């Protein structure tokens, strides 16, 4: 049987529920621009009803069931995966952009231009073999070209070194984030054992996992206490129980190399691949210079008694033989050092190396062209991939936002709704009070 006090209680529950909803609305509004925040909602249910015999069930007001966050876990995981792919492509694009900038083509300062200057100077020498000036110019242009080349190698090696330190930075970041995830896991578990949902902590952990996806791809699953593990390339660096294995050279077994070889996304992958890519470009350029030095030297010393090598290629650096640099008259334009002054046949032969296809069936300039164009193509492909990936991720973020984002209009509308409900509940209470007043103060006196 329902008494007036029960009705008073129902109104109180209503006011309470509306106040809680209003509070959550406030929470949503204040977190409207918090990164990774999922909007929350107070789930209300009609409370257990009271049976009135012969009449039926009588409601007893509202019950606050739970505060839930609206989130699509599948989408969150997908965003993580696509985010590590994006991070991989965009980091790779950055490295390629640096390589492209170092190659500095097409300009009048790049290696291609200085190469053609070298050939031009030999051509001029072949016409003026008696001129010391022409020989000096050959030495100067060749030295300039060699310096240009060495500068290229220096800068590429510097990028390679930087990329290598960035791999370490990636690993440090991964280890730090995994540590943070572990501590959030522990707090989550403490709350879930009490049967409640730690909404904000879950958001925080999702955000940490998303941060982690910048650096690497990984798998993650939560256990019954909501603790997420982290598995990178098949190696469990964080277990559900909270055991952390830092990624470094001292890892047990071949776990370290398994991670380094097995990682498929994130900036770690980009840096690892970038390092290999730079190594490959450096090898190619060095091979190019070694072959060129070799060919020039053969042409310059062939059949000469006491001939001088023109170029030296040591430790990956190209230089003009220092003997020739000191004494340009050692540049040999003719058959040998006793040949007539006007003999420019050797210089002409060296100038004609420009047309000789001695590098995998390509001339020097064609080979260099193919190296630079190769970098250009790689950069273009990576840029396209990065922008496609970015569009895909934008789309997913929009979907996430559609589910979990805070809409201010919606919150304000809810605010009005809850406020009115609160007022109405208070009104019910006021009426009940009046009724009690009638009953207590004015009945039967």
């Amino acid at each position, binding site marked *: 049987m329902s008494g007036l006090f029960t009705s008073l209680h129902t109104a109180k529950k209503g006011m309470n529920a509306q106040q809680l909803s209003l509070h959550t609305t406030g929470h949503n509004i204040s977190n409207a621009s918090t990164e990774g925040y999922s909007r929350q909602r107070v789930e209300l249910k009609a409370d257990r009803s009271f049976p009135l015999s012969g009449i039926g069930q009588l409601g007893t007001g509202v019950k606050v069931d739970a505060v839930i966050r609206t989130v699509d876990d599948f989408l969150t995981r997908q965003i993580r995966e696509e985010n590590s792919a994006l991070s991989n492509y965009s980091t790779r694009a950055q490295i390629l952009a640096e390589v492209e900038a170092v190659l500095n083509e097409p300009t009048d300062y790049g290696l291609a231009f200085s190469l053609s200057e070298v050939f031009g100077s030999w*051509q001029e020498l072949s016409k003026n073999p008696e001129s010391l000036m022409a020989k000096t110019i050959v030495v100067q242009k060749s030295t300039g070209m060699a310096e240009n080349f060495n500068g290229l190698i220096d800068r590429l090696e510097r990028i390679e070194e930087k990329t290598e330190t960035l791999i370490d930075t990636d690993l440090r970041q991964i280890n730090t984030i995994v540590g943070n995830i572990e501590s959030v896991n522990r707090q989550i578990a403490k709350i879930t054992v009490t049967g409640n949902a730690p909404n904000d902590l879950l958001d925080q952990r999702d955000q940490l996992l998303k941060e982690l996806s910048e650096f690497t791809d990984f798998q993650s699953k939560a256990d019954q206490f909501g603790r997420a593990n982290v598995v990178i390339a098949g190696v469990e660096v964080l277990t559900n129980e909270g055991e952390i294995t830092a990624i470094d050279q001292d890892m047990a077994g071949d776990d370290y190399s398994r991670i380094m070889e097995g990682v498929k996304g994130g900036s770690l992958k980009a840096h690892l691949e970038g390092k290999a890519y730079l190594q490959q470009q450096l090898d190619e350029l060095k091979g190019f210079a070694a072959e060129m030095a070799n060919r020039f030297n053969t042409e310059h010393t062939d059949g000469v008694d006491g001939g001088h090598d023109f170029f030296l290629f040591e430790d990956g650096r190209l230089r003009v033989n220092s003997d020739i640099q000191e004494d340009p008259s050692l540049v040999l334009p003719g058959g040998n050092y006793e040949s007539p002054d006007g003999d420019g046949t050797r210089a002409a032969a060296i100038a004609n190396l420009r047309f000789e296809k001695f590098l995998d069936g390509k001339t020097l300039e064609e080979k260099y062209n193919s190296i630079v164009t190769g970098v250009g193509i790689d950069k273009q492909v990576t840029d396209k991939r990065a922008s496609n990936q970015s569009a895909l991720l*934008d789309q997913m973020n929009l979907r996430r936002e559609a589910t979990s984002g*805070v809409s201010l209009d919606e919150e304000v509308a809810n605010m009005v709704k809850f406020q009115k409900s609160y007022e109405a509940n208070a009104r019910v209470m006021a009426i009940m009070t009046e009724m009690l007043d009638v009953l207590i103060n004015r009945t039967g006196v």
Partner: protein
Amino acid sequence: MRITNSMIHRQTISNMGKNLTRLQHYQNQISSGKELSKPSDNPLAFSKIFDLHSHIRVNEQFGTNIRDSIGWVDTQDSALQNAGDILHRVRDLVIYGANGTQSEADLQIIKDEIIQNIHGFKDVMNTNFNGKYVFGGQETTKPPFGFDGEDADKLVYNGNTVNLTREISKGVSVELLTSGAELVGEGDDSLGVLLSDIVKALEDGDQELLSGELLGKLDKGIERLLNGRAKIGGISNRLEGTEGRNNAEHLEMKTLLSSLEDIDIAEKYMEYSIMANVYQASLAAGAKIMQPGLMDYLR
């Protein structure tokens, strides 16, 4: 789909970013005047441009070679013209000297003039171009013609017999006629020996030898020189023809390069203005959409 304020924010900002990137791209193209500024803008076109640049530089080098060679050949031609004139004068003098009516004193005068002409001939044949002797074979730094130490009037050739070559296009070289021996002959057959024989015959008063064998040899010598000059003329023609082709090729490649590399300013500017309009529209729309909310209408 549920739309939230931050979705609109995010999309507006991302779209404005895209528009601004494209605007910057056009702006970069217009200010540099070039279709591409780095290989990745268009690797295929870049590769072609790279090749063309290299070919143009090669072509320019060959152009320089051709023009140098033309200068060289022109110098040779005018030197040989002078040399020919001198030899014709010598021939006149020989005929004059072979005339039986000349007195001994006359013969002496004729002989002196011939000796002067031999010296003149030597000077002309020692012509240089840019400091290099043009008729010395590969010996370009030593005067190729001089006199025999024993016989003061005997012209001798000190150069070598290798002609200089010049690259005038890829894989094509032209052989300049620089061997003086080819112009004056070698050994006993040479013009030097002949001229000193003429001087000797004049000294001896051997007019028969003068009008007979020596005059015949002199005619042959003149003919050899003329042949050389004709050959040099042929080389000159060939060089001029090649220069024409070289220039045409240069123009052709420059045109092709320009079509690949340079922007069409009118077209780019149109694209730029369209993009600028789009950008401004996105700014205006963004500003309008992002402002209002339900809050503005609740009191």
